[in-house]
């Protein structure tokens, strides 16, 4: 699935993560992360973002994330919403993790 527009989701408030996703100029998934807990959880956050995107069938994207201490479930939810908005499709069939093609 290709990202065409820019999609955003989330807020800058404590325990949330703000995600912006857009088309990438290069191959693969690039993540620019700002996190208040970079040292402890930076890798984990990047892993969750990447995995969520791959699960949705997104292989190439540029992601800008500002994390304020979000849990994995929050990160997944925000990523899925941002992708829905970037592709203008409902990519969140509840309880199912696969994006409708």
């Amino acid at each position, binding site marked *: 699935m290709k990202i065409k527009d820019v999609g955003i989701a989330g807020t*800058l*408030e404590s325990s949330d993560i703000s995600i912006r996703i857009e088309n990438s100029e290069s191959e693969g998934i690039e993540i620019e992360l700002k996190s208040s807990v970079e040292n402890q959880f930076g890798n984990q956050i990047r892993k969750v973002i990447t995995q969520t995107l791959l699960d949705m069938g997104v292989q190439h994207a540029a992601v*800008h994330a500002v994390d304020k201490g979000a849990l994995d479930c929050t990160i997944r939810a925000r990523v899925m919403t941002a992708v829905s908005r970037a592709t203008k499709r409902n990519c969140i069939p509840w309880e199912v993790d696969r994006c409708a093609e």
Partner: protein
Amino acid sequence: MDTESLTEETLLHSGRESARVADFLRSQGLQLDDDVEFTVVLAAQGSIAATGSFAGRVLKCIAVDPQYLQSGLSAKIVTRLIREEYILGRTHLFLFTRPANVPIFSSFGFYIVHVVPSQVALMENVPNGIQRFLRTLSTSAPKGKNAAAIVVNCNPFTLGHKHLIEYAAARCDMLHLFVVSEDKSSFPADVRYRLVVEGTKNIAHVHVHKGGDYIISAATFPTYFIKEYQEQVETHALLDIGIFGTRIAPALGIVKRYVGEEPFCKVTATYNRIMQDVLPRYGVDLEVIPRLTSGGGAVSASRVRALMREGKLEQTRELVPDSTYAFLMSEEARPVIRRIQEAGQRH
């Protein structure tokens, strides 16, 4: 302080409501800029706890009542502003703020473009915005050994501009013209750019670039956090010249900048004086060129606009090149002429 009970209001500007916001900002030592398009307010029983606004792609006038500091209100405000900008399709956003506020905006995902210590910081919401801009500049024109630059608005392009450009082009191996991209002039930015390209196409080794987001005209520079007018003018100049000197000039190997003499406009004169002081520190020389005159006056864009305002288009013939005159006489120019006549504006 309890933030759960705060109500959010958004305003598209109307006199009375913005007066309330302006009063609050004033109590925080700030002002409400005139060009603000959208404002969000968090209030408790009608009294403002926090506010933030934007004009175009610039976030500004963000303030939190001291009682509510450390309650995450600025995060709420900035989130709301960003969301509204995205709804409008604007995703590359900027803000100008006091350098002391850099850490907080940094935590919101903004990155420094340039800082003038103790005075102003320009930030953007992408990590490599200015780097990408510099890359486009240097790929569109190779680095010169003896490159020069002129920054122009050209509202519209006149023989006065042409004179300055020919003078500079004859004295360097590559002349970079930057046309200010802001749409705050009567001639739209794309038309101004086009007329510069057409008017200079026969001049050797001239490259015309769109100024983009990193050449900041005085018109767009937010002044809401600076009280004194003179300080506003100087701070803008230091920021803009700082970006030019530390980023743009090195990317293109520019060692000289040319500017037309400015006898009337005090703001431009201040800007030129600061360039004179500051540019040499970045290895760039400044040369001020006397203006082209005709019929006892300087050939300037403001003179052309004055004639347009008076409906005396044919008299612009001697002030502009054929390409600009052809535009002025065309259908496409009608809305511009009308706008100048109706607004009675100097710019």
